[in-house]
């Protein structure tokens, strides 16, 4: 449950172009807040909101060194979100394959010998 909520937050964190931009910059290594968030052309409060969402998702951590705040990417939540997406995609790939295989079997059953014309019956109703 907790894990699922964290995944949701990670997806939220990645759902805005500015937050994706920040993550992309931080993928290159630790940065100051200024370096990571400069030049996006939005207000400071907006940036703060984005940083808060990223921190809540656990996607970044803030390291305070005197007056300098540095941001660092945390890899685990992004890794988990990536794994989730990959699994889900594989599931759908397999469904597409299964449908393909099934349709081929149906076709064989309906065209037992030589090139019969197009099959009309609904093959999905009974399979065995």
């Amino acid at each position: 449950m907790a894990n699922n909520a964290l995944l949701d937050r990670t997806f939220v964190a990645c759902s805005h172009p500015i937050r994706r931009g920040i993550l992309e910059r931080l993928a290159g290594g630790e940065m100051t807040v200024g370096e990571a968030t400069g030049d996006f052309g939005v207000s400071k409060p907006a940036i703060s909101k984005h940083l808060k969402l990223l921190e809540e998702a656990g996607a970044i951590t803030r390291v305070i060194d005197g007056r300098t705040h540095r941001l660092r990417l945390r890899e685990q939540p992004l890794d988990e979100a990536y794994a989730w997406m990959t699994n889900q995609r594989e599931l759908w790939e397999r469904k597409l394959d299964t449908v393909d295989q099934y349709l081929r079997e149906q076709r064989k059953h309906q065209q037992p010998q030589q090139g019969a014309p197009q099959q009309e019956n609904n093959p999905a109703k009974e399979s065995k």
Partner: protein
Amino acid sequence: MTEITKPNETSLRLQRTYDAPAEDVFDAWTNPEVLRRWWKANPAWITPVAEVDLRVGGRYRISMEDPESGKKYTAEGEYSEVSRPTRLVYSWQWEQEDGELGHPSTVAVDFRSEGELTTVVLEHTGFESLESRDSHGHGWEGVLEAFQTHLNERAAQTS
């Protein structure tokens, strides 16, 4: 061959073309026998549940189980659009280990007839719960992938 529409920014999108009429592809998609075959991580697994109530407001539920560990993976959802043979929309939720349902996402499947062929376009959207409306630009799936590439490169450098 098929035109590719711009994918939603927070989606998985897959496409496959079958040599069969749309009615057959649509029926196969929702056939419990097909669900049972699909819904196992490997041939040794069992699929104790594959229920489909194919109508708007009807639900489906599929469960797969590893007989060795007894671990179960269950997904379920509700049909919100059933337009045979062109379109099917349903919610998707993973069942959690504590029996609660996870965050609902949405699966939309279009069946497009092109002569003898049928192209299935599947879009799975809505993984994030709050903010899809203010997101624009390209997908975060791409970001995650770029990020993963970066990690792999770094792992290669340090090893």
